[in-house]
């Protein structure tokens, strides 16, 4: 597992959980030991500050991860100050592409924390194995099963929050023996409108979500398993207070079948092959909004078929991963607007004109443990991508802007990366560099009058865009001993052919209320840098102090600031454990966002800080565990907004929460 280790950005507060729980013998049904050793961001929700937080809330605490909020649901993850187009978000390596033209359904919105074991975040090119990206990749890793225990296990979870009357309830049950396992998992969340600080109601921020997952695995031979998995996620009545429209339905079916062979030969440690299919349906809805300029329907669909195969091969001090990855995606979205005059015909356009994307790629990585102190890792990948406008009408519409538009566009995408780690006496120094390319997203290539409510422009895709290319460098320094840990790290991306929308004053906006039209174009370059300082201090075993300070910087080729770049921000936690109780005091905040992008409709956000408190109790019996957490977030009911809040919608005000988890484990260890 620990080959990934240096790719993983430690989550500060999760490490606190490590402190708290590493003392306890692991009796839960997850294979927690292994994970703790690998120091990955573990989604062991029982040990979190606020169990049953949404996946978005989890991710928000991760270093170098930011989340764009358009409401209280489906936040859009950013990594290294780069959003969906520049990062690859996958579920167990599976590619899923949101079905919404306005990015209201990032991949992360279709899964639940309870579906997942951990989140693998790889920065820059170190993560670009199965899909080319610029900023890095986020892989949501599902629960796995080791065929080592038999019997029943499960959990019942319940959470309630005062703000938005949020209710979360879930259950999980699993049966396993040494040849077979099956796990069913269900989660329900419901929220009303939330209140921002100073008792300010934020209308259209409600949501309802149901998520069910079913996994079954069978050992087909000694050290070979077959695992089938299904996630059904159904969210309804989702409000987006920052946007002019809400969503009546966001639904995903995510399926996969995976074959795993372990210890095939002394050299071949494992070989995993997976086929998958997912289909997403997303329906926007403006029927609940007052004063709609024009009523419209905006359904979107995205379907992806894919294949992944990876072999882990050990040759002396090298650990190689050889992989192939392929997927075929169909993205289709349309818009029908209904004129006020009922005699007029509805107005229809394809906003994503049935775009088919085929990607086939090869990748290889090597982690070379030169000796106990020196490690080298490098990777290479190459892929072929074809985009095709499958709908003739879509092509004809594109020809209005690009008379010579071709229905197909082929690209080759390459990337490579190398990193070095030196480790000795608690000191660790890492540095690395990479080169990567990405193809434009469907919206960037083929979007048709996609309204961006942030800068109030309609966006038109550009099928002639060249590949965006990036050279990145990263450096990190870690010192740790029994009591202290210091981690300083930073990265820099120099991005060539940076894709961004440029105003075309000759074009007339389509959306009523839009200022104008932007067409996607490419800047010669842009640059983005991120820096983090993490400090932790544990004077005694049951008391820990943690601090995280982050800063990002991004400019275009004319030294103008890029949008959605994080200002200086911080998080500070104190954790104390006594017997079965634990307590946390946490504060987080940001400095004034002065480096905002006026060109893209940004305005300054003020500095802020909020204070959170929580307390937990756990009862651990051999077969039963009970976890209780209570807490309050934003105690002072501060009214605030951050750089990542779309149109500056305010964040949640004071919120009391309680969560209860009852876990049972009646399995016998088989080994």
């Amino acid at each position, binding site marked *: 597992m620990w080959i990934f280790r240096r790719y993983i950005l430690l989550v500060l507060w999760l490490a606190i959980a490590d402190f708290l729980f590493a003392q306890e013998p692991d009796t839960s049904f997850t294979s927690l030991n292994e994970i703790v050793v690998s120091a990955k961001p573990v989604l062991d929700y029982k040990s979190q500050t606020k169990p049953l937080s949404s996946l978005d809330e989890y991710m928000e605490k991760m270093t170098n991860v930011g989340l764009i909020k358009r409401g209280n649901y489906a936040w859009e993850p950013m990594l290294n100050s780069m959003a969906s187009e520049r990062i690859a978000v996958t579920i167990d390596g599976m590619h899923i592409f949101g079905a919404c033209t306005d990015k209201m359904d990032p991949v992360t919105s279709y899964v639940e924390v309870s579906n997942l074991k951990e989140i693998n975040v790889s920065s820059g090119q170190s993560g670009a194995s199965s899909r080319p990206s610029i900023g890095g990749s986020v892989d949501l890793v599902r629960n796995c099963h080791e065929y080592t225990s038999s019997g029943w296990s499960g959990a019942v979870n319940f959470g309630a929050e005062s703000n938005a009357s949020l209710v979360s309830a879930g259950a999980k049950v699993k049966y396993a023996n040494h040849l077979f396992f099956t796990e069913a998992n269900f989660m329900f969340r419901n929220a009303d409108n939330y209140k921002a600080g100073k008792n300010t109601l934020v209308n259209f921020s409600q949501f309802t979500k149901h998520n069910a997952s079913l996994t079954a695995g069978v050992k087909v031979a000694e050290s070979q398993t077959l695992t089938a998995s299904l996630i059904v996620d159904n969210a309804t009545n989702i409000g987006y207070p920052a946007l002019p429209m809400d969503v009546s339905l966001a639904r995903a079916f995510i399926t996969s079948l995976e074959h795993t062979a372990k210890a095939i030969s002394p050299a071949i440690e494992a070989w995993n092959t997976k086929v998958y299919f997912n289909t997403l349906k997303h329906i926007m809805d403006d029927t609940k909004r007052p004063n709609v300029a024009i009523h419209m329907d905006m359904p979107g669909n995205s379907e992806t078929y894919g294949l992944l195969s990876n072999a882990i091969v050990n040759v002396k001090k090298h650990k190689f991963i050889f992989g192939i990855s392929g997927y075929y995606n169909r993205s289709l979205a349309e818009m029908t607007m209904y004129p006020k005059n009922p005699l007029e*015909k509805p107005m229809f356009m394809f906003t994503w004109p049935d775009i088919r994307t085929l990607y086939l790629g090869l990748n290889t990585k090597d982690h070379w443990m030169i000796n106990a102190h020196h490690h080298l890792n490098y990777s290479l990948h190459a892929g072929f991508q074809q985009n095709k406008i499958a709908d003739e009408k879509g092509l004809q*519409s594109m020809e*209005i802007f690009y008379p010579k538009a071709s229905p197909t566009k082929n690209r080759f995408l390459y990337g490579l990366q190398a990193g070095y780690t030196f480790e000795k006496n608690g000191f660790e120094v890492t540095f690395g560099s990479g080169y990567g390319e990405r193809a434009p997203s469907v919206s960037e290539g083929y979007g048709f009058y996609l309204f961006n409510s942030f800068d109030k422009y309609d966006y038109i895709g550009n099928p002639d865009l060249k590949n965006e290319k990036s050279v990145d460098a990263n450096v990190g320094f870690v010192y740790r001993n029994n009591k202290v840990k210091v981690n300083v790290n930073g990265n820099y991306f120099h991005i060539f052919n940076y894709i961004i929308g440029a105003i075309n004053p000759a074009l007339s*906006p389509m959306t009523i209320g839009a200022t104008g039209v932007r067409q996607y174009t490419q800047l010669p370059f842009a640059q983005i840098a991120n820096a983090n300082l993490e400090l932790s201090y544990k004077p005694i075993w049951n008391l820990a102090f943690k601090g995280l300070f982050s800063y990002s910087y991004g400019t275009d080729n004319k030294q103008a600031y890029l949008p959605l770049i994080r200002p200086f921000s911080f998080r500070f936690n104190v954790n104390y454990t006594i017997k079965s109780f634990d307590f946390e005091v946490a504060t987080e905040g940001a400095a004034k966002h002065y480096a905002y992008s006026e060109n893209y409709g940004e305005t300054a956000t003020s500095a802020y800080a909020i204070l959170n408190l929580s307390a937990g109790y756990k009862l651990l019996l051999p077969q039963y565990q009970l976890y209780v957490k209570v807490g309050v977030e934003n105690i002072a009911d501060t009214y605030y907004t951050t750089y990542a809040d779309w149109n500056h919608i305010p964040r949640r005000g004071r919120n009391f929460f309680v969560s209860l988890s009852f876990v049972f484990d009646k399995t016998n260890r088989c080994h």
Partner: protein
Amino acid sequence: MAFAVLLLAVSSCKKENNNKASETEDLTQIQEVSNANFSVEIWGVKSGFETGYNDIYFRVKDKTSGVYLQDASLSWYPEMHMMSMSHSCPNSTIAKMNGKQTLYKAYAIFTMATNATEYWDAKIDITKNGEVSTVIPVLNVVASSTKKVASFTGSDSKKYILAYIEPQKPKAAVNDLVLGLFLKNGMGFDAVQNLNIEVDPRMPSMNNHSSPGNENPVFNPSDNFYHGKLSLTMSGLWKLNLIVKNANNDIIGGKAVTQTEDSNLYLEVEF
């Protein structure tokens, strides 16, 4: 020899039978009118006539032989009969269609709809073997749901008619735009060729959204119409705001679209 002639007759007959369906494929018969000798079928793309540009198709059957004429010469004069006066409308001569055996075609741009007291008819003369035979069908013209023809008096005090001709099947794409511009001359109309037409397509229901990639139509002597490009970014109702100018750039009709006002000279297309 007689056998050969017979064979030829059979084969030509067969051919005609085969072609009967394809002769009027995609067309709808609107009406049929006869005199002692001939029966004239009138066909259209739609099931009736509308104000604006209409393609009109004709077939003439010899009532004695029951055979459709292939070599007749047809001429016509569509005419509006009003309370106090009558007038014609822009139209073409009737010509045999290329690739068809029995189908003849003309166009007429009806400037107004039939009403209780005012109606259109068309005097059709069929000339065969030097003999002229006439039918005068009444043509029922209904108002088009969109504005497809505009009559205006120019700043030069002349009376013009501007008609939407193509695209008849508009798409969300760059369409071939064809407009007809005619000058009233007595009771008839002449195609105008020395004026310029500027087209500004807008969607009134979308805050006057406009489209890129349009090309103003220019006169084409092959059909005496003005040909250009019309970009439509989506389906729905589009208003083609028009300005007609002379060679000196003086405005003859219409005006530029402003924040508050559209052109007073316009045509519409809806799909």
